[in-house]
């Protein structure tokens, strides 16, 4: 019944955790790679150069070349763009659909809640990969279908997080106070619910981003993702399979790139979660 205001004050102001810093650095690395690829890559990432095929690392080719003589480093830089694009669009879709759905469910309750949570349940029964396979069948495999599929697959996660956050916010006295001042539902959603669940949603974004990166890699691996010749890390990995015995580095680089991106987003998510949810951080 009594609260401990002092404890609350403590928890909101803290130094960023090392995980957050490391994660941010890794994410920044990926973002930088993608940005750099817009203005510069050492070589054209799609242009084959049969004479230069399958070279090891050298000054000319930092990460060597692949079976078509394409510069792997350029491909990795360019691939960052695809990875981020897929992640951004997928997370964007899930965010824009899932969050309002969750807020609506949390604020309205009753039939609206039941229906939207059932919808989320149905979606939940279709994991991203399944949606992607079905989409690939109907619309053909492409970056767009992969993004859509992963995005749709991520909606339930956002809906659930937004709903539970909304339920929490709606039970607070400041929302009661707002209602007591005749604030409309939309304004309550905008001024009270949204800012207060933003933290949880941001964490969900980060985690979903990591999942999207992995899902895109898996889809490309199955040939359901970005079609060639545009370099995508998952396909680079798939293509390098033949060379594991002879040129293992061809698999190492894209594998590392995926790991860096996933690790980065996961760490950022963890760090933010610790920041937003002091309870998880141990101690009382």
């Amino acid at each position, binding site marked *: 019944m009594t609260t401990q205001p002092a404890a609350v004050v403590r928890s909101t102001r803290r130094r960023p955790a090392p995980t957050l810093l490391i994660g941010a650095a890794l994410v920044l690395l990926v973002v930088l790679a993608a940005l750099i690829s817009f203005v510069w890559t050492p070589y054209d990432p799609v242009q084959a150069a049969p004479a230069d095929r399958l070279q090891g690392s050298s000054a000319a080719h930092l990460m060597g070349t692949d079976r078509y003589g394409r510069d792997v480093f350029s491909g990795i830089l360019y691939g960052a763009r695809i990875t981020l694009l897929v992640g951004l669009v997928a997370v964007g879709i899930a965010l824009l659909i899932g969050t309002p759905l969750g807020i609506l469910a949390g604020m309205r309750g009753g039939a609206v809640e039941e229906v939207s949570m*059932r919808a989320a*349940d*149905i979606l*939940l*029964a*279709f*994991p991203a*990969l*399944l949606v992607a*396979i*079905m989409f*690939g*069948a*109907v619309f053909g495999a492409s970056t767009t279908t992969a993004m859509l599929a992963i995005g749709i697959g991520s909606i339930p996660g956002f809906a659930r997080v937004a709903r539970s956050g909304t339920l929490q916010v709606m039970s607070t006295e400041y929302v009661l106070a707002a209602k007591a001042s005749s604030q409309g539902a939309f304004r309550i959603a905008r001024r009270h619910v949204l800012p207060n669940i933003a933290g949880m949603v941001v964490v969900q974004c980060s985690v979903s981003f*990591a999942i999207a990166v*992995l899902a895109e*890699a*898996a889809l490309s*691996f*199955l040939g359901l993702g970005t079609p060639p010749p545009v370099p995508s890390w*998952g396909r680079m*990995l798939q293509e390098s*399979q033949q060379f*594991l*015995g002879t040129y293992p580095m061809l*698999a190492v680089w894209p*594998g590392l790139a*995926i*790991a*860096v991106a*996933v*690790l980065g987003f*996961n*760490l950022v998510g963890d760090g933010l979660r610790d920041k937003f949810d002091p*309870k*998880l951080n*141990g*101690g*009382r």
Partner: protein
Amino acid sequence: MAIRLLINLARFAVTYVAATVLVFLFMRAIPGDPAQIALGVNATPELLAQTRAEFGTDRPLVVQYFDWALGLPFGDFGTSYVTRQDISPLVLDRVQVSLILVVLAMIVALLIAIPFGTLAAVKHRSAGGILVSGLSQLGVAVPNFLAGILLVVVFAVGLGWFPANGWTPPGQDFGDFASRVALPVLALASVQGAILTRYVRSAVMEVMSEDYLRTARAKGLGKMEALFKHGLRNASIPVLTVTSVQLAALIIGAVVIERVFVIPGLGSMLLDAVGNRDLLTVQSVVMVLVAITLIINLVVDVLYTILDPRIRKAS
């Protein structure tokens, strides 16, 4: 508790029926006429019409839907347009394979995750705990197919300890089954284990900060004793949630591993069926997957009520 189960069953039914409609309509959007695909390129119009009648694809959509959907609960999925075979026994075979693979992987993953996650939480400030946390972070970041490829390269091709791929049903030759299932299970479990380790860690961290654990210690229980007696069951509830979600996602997510290890599971069946435009098979496999997911949710809900008396009471 029975009432709760009833509600869940009702939800299950509603969700399932909605999913059948969704899947059915979606599948009808697939380009290509199944009759045309089955007959190849130079089929005559009469023959096409005849085949369509044989397949029943010339009937109104509603009729087709009910014909298909009403058979589902009885395990009657119809006859494939492409293989001309009864789909049900094939799907059943694949379901077994997928379930064996995924459940084994999940068990192994839990065997990894529970001790290591607990360790990482208890010793979260010491080197050991940080190491486990770090490793689990790395494990999560590795795509499972990469793990699979590496395992094959090292243990099958390199060391020759295990077959590189393939599948033998456990009933047929258990030794062979075990040696073939080892690597794919390990590939799935290493990544799942890492994911679950993180959840176990945070769940244990959370219960460690609970008041009742302090109470237990005030009774004279040691730190670990208190955690085992009072903490783990509480921590198991969030872990159960994640495990169920992961399990459901893994049944289809394992398709990549099925690819790498040439395992005839549901995932690869689905991919093949999509490739062959085997509509009915695709629909049926998808619905089986959806049903499995929903059943897992149902079972987990029952488990919750067993684990958590508060839920039992609430209804």
